[in-house]
């Protein structure tokens, strides 16, 4: 099976400091991979490099494109990469404000993405938007409201709808449940899980919350000081951690 994403020797330096170093992994279709590590471990730098938001210094990010098969994203032209991030990729920010247009209605936020990939029929765009608002459990009568009138959890669900409406194959998520109340978090976790299953989506999820990765991710990589110190099946890494740092991380979680 061809990996959907193949990452080889990805390195990003900030002057003399290391952002992330020599990161290598394969992600297969339908897999959800978690990246954990404390603040400053390089997990967000890695996600930004993968998603084309930050140019790495070395390495390759090979994506299995629909049209031309596996291609190194880092060697694509800027318009090609932008097209990819509008169609096959999704990026869900921790703060919905970074991923939504706050001055545009909820329906507009979702419909805009359909227009960006060529949809022109107003009725169909609105119907597509309404369908997705329903899927992320936003009531139909809120379609014309702006996200500023939404709660944090609703904003995050709207951001997910906006990102998934174009049927991407790979979603990057940066702390998607961070900053939300636990009650809202649970509902969002369930939503992400069912969308991943129904759409056959692959996802890379950065979080510092080990309980969240256990429920969302099939596989896990653990980062420390910019390097991957351990990788494997999520429950195996959490229940039988091999590296000292992972053991420390797992044993430091407070029990409820």
């Amino acid at each position, binding site marked *: 099976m061809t990996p959907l994403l193949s990452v080889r020797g990805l390195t990003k330096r900030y002057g003399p400091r290391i952002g992330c170093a020599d990161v290598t992994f394969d992600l*297969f279709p339908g*897999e959800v991979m978690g990246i954990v590590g404390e603040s400053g471990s390089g997990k967000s730098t890695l996600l930004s490099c993968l998603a084309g938001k930050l140019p790495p210094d070395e390495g390759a990010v090979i994506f299995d494109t629909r049209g031309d098969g596996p291609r190194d994203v880092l060697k694509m032209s800027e318009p090609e990469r932008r097209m990819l991030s509008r169609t096959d990729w999704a990026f869900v920010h921790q703060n919905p404000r970074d991923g939504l247009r706050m001055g545009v209605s909820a329906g507009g936020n979702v419909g805009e993405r359909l227009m960006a990939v060529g949809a022109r029929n107003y009725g169909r765009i609105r119907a597509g938007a309404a369908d997705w608002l329903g899927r992320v459990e936003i009531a139909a009568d809120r379609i014309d409201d702006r996200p500023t009138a939404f709660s944090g959890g609703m904003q995050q669900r709207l951001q997910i709808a906006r990102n998934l409406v174009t049927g991407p194959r790979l979603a990057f998520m940066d702390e998607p449940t961070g900053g939300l109340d*636990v*009650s809202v978090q*649970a*509902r969002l*976790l*369930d939503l992400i*899980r069912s969308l991943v*299953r129904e759409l056959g989506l692959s996802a890379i999820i950065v979080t510092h919350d080990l309980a969240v990765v*256990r*429920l969302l991710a*099939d*596989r896990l990589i653990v980062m420390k000081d910019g390097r991957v110190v351990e990788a*494997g*099946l999520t*429950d*195996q890494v959490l*229940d*039988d951690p*091999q*590296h*000292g740092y992972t*053991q*420390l991380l797992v*044993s430091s979680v407070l029990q409820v």
Partner: protein
Amino acid sequence: MAMIEVSGVAKAFTLHNQGGAVIPVMQGAALTVSAGECVALTGSSGAGKSTLMRMIYGNYLAGEGRILVGGLDVARAAPREIIALRRATLGHVSQFLRVVPRVPTIDVVMEPLLRVGAGAEEARGKAEALLARLRIPERLWSLSPLTFSGGEQQRVNIARGFAHEYPALLLDEPTASLDAANRATVLSLISEAKARGAAILGIFHDEGARAAVCDREVDVSAFTPRGMAA
């Protein structure tokens, strides 16, 4: 060929944050479970029954040896191969229910079926039948099992484990906190799974249950590393 085939398996835990202490817990573990057979792991508490079972599920890494499940060597397989194995071939009923909070019980039980591609209606029908058989009142099906009693949670876990007809099944104390009627139901679920050809490996402290469904016993004390015997 046996469905589950374990040979030469060894395991040690290295505690990096406690002076790098190395604790060998298993050595030379070997067993087989054929299709249609139920094998019980026995041995005193701490002898390594759960450790061995976790290694077979891929939850603990094996240090040495071979663990073949349906032809895949779990001790060496890539994560994605183990994910596929767990989805279609190898089921596991643990003592703990780990689910997303606030997800309805019916959805929790349907999930393994949806993951192997069953239609929503078929999955719902099977899940409802199992929950009814395990005497979970219908008014609870739309509620999260995390609010249930220990015995109810265990029955939800069992329903989830038996929803898809896995060819191989690991059972960790499936009858532990059940009343007589539910215990009988679980024992018939196990017998039915055997009859359709499932290979089952289980830990049963309940001797009556062991006698009722198990064909053989494997005492894991034999795999305790030398010098570690209690």
